[in-house]
């Protein structure tokens, strides 16, 4: 039996999902399984499996009916379907990251926020939208925990960030 994702290798892992009175099968090769974090120790295992079932399901439907079923979601900008995106792990346009936000997060990004370099013009948005709210939350909890040294440090940092915003 071939792997449901790559359709190339022989499947070595067989998973059955039961939902109400519906069951579906998933057959994966070792490579595809490892790539998608299918591992007993992965705390997100259930979530990961659920996403793959849905993605593979929509692929199967597209193939079998020839015509796209009504519930298949397409990116409004580039027209790629979730199934196609998951199969090649390749998005079609920047809009895909909005359209398939939940699925991409569940399968690949796992709530990780990118902290690296971005264009200079966007740094200011990052301070306003991400860094300041984050610092405020940490400040609040430091005050609640009566950790005054930390609170003072955070206050200074917040002031610096606000100063940077004003200068813009």
């Amino acid at each position, binding site marked *: 039996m071939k792997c449901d994702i790559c359709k190339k290798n022989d499947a070595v892992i067989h998973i059955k999902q039961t939902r109400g009175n519906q069951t579906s099968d998933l057959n994966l090769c070792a490579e595809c399984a490892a790539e998608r974090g299918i591992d007993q120790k992965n705390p997100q295992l259930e979530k990961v499996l659920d996403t793959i079932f849905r993605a593979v399901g929509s692929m199967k439907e597209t193939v079998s009916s020839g015509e796209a079923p009504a519930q298949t979601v397409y990116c409004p900008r*580039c027209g790629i379907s979730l199934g196609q995106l998951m199969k090649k792990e390749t998005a*079609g346009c*920047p809009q895909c990251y909005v359209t398939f936000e939940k699925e991409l997060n569940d399968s*690949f990004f796992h709530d990780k926020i990118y902290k690296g370099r971005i264009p200079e013009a966007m740094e200011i948005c990052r301070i306003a939208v991400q860094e300041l709210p984050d610092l405020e939350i940490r400040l609040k909890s430091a005050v609640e925990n009566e950790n005054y040294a930390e609170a003072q440090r955070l206050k200074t940092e917040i002031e610096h960030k606000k100063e940077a915003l004003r200068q813009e």
Partner: protein
Amino acid sequence: MDMMHDSNFISYSDCVIRLRMSLFRNCTGYLFPSRMQAAESRRFLGAVTERMDRLPEGEWTLHRSEKMSDDEFFYYRDRGLLPDDYGRMTVPVFFYTDKNGATLFFLNREGIELRIVSSEFDPFRSLESLSDIDRRLEKIFPYAVSLRYGYLNSHRTRTGAGLEAEVLLSLPALNQTDEGSRLLKIAAAENLKIEPYICPVLKEAVCGILSVSTTALNGETEEEMMNRFSGNLGTIVKMERLKRRDWHNGMTEQIRARYRDALDRINLSMKLTLAESYDILETVRMAVLAGVADHPCSTINWLFDFLKESYLTRFRNRFTGSSEPMMYDSLRAHLLKDIFCGKAEVLCIKD
């Protein structure tokens, strides 16, 4: 500037042949290349060309591929500054910057790719050069970026920092032992891809040369990725150097004999193909590493590219002073004779 990283340059020239690094970007308002139709590609290339014209002249010299000779184009490609499949005609726009030795090209794996190739393994310096150019480009191109994911690219491994690094490594000692499985274990744990290097000219694997590459992990910053990459490279180089110590137990004589054979071959050959030359180079490298020959490793690394036809063509006038048709095989034989068996003025040529 935030990239003012102290360059912790460690020489790995006994192992690293060259380092290539790429930044990937896409633009808002355009699909990713794999989904682009012909009309949109044209629109994209038109916009790119028009915007590049706005880039201030100065330390930055632009060469466009359609105005380049074939020789020049293949020279950049053989150096690794362009992807092997990069069509000369299909994607006509291509720019080369003198100062940083970088290329900027379009509609390959992502909309925009900025690439730099260096003979030294100094990833932080390469990254600094790339970022420096990128900071100028971001002023003329509307990059697709999200605060959450970073730079938005088609493949998830390039989304985020949008950075890729690759080194070509020669590991003669590890190659002779069955350390392959240990290397693969490191690779799997550290998100590295290790594979035999396929020479685009020969279209086959070159004996003993590996390509080790990586992209940023989910959420990883450029600096974190560079630290991981150079840390792992350090581990691999250490493993190789440790294995080389075993050569003293009986191997040295064998290596010396092979080196003598290689010298004989250089001396007697009127012609050498690229594959034969590579074979000789790796023998010389082993001899140098085993301490039975005395040539700089940097020369051997440099010859790796220099023996290719595109390089020989580019520098032909410096050897022959004429523009007669090139006899590549005999030129290679000459060159190796000059370098390893005597007169070495050729060494001063820098690319």
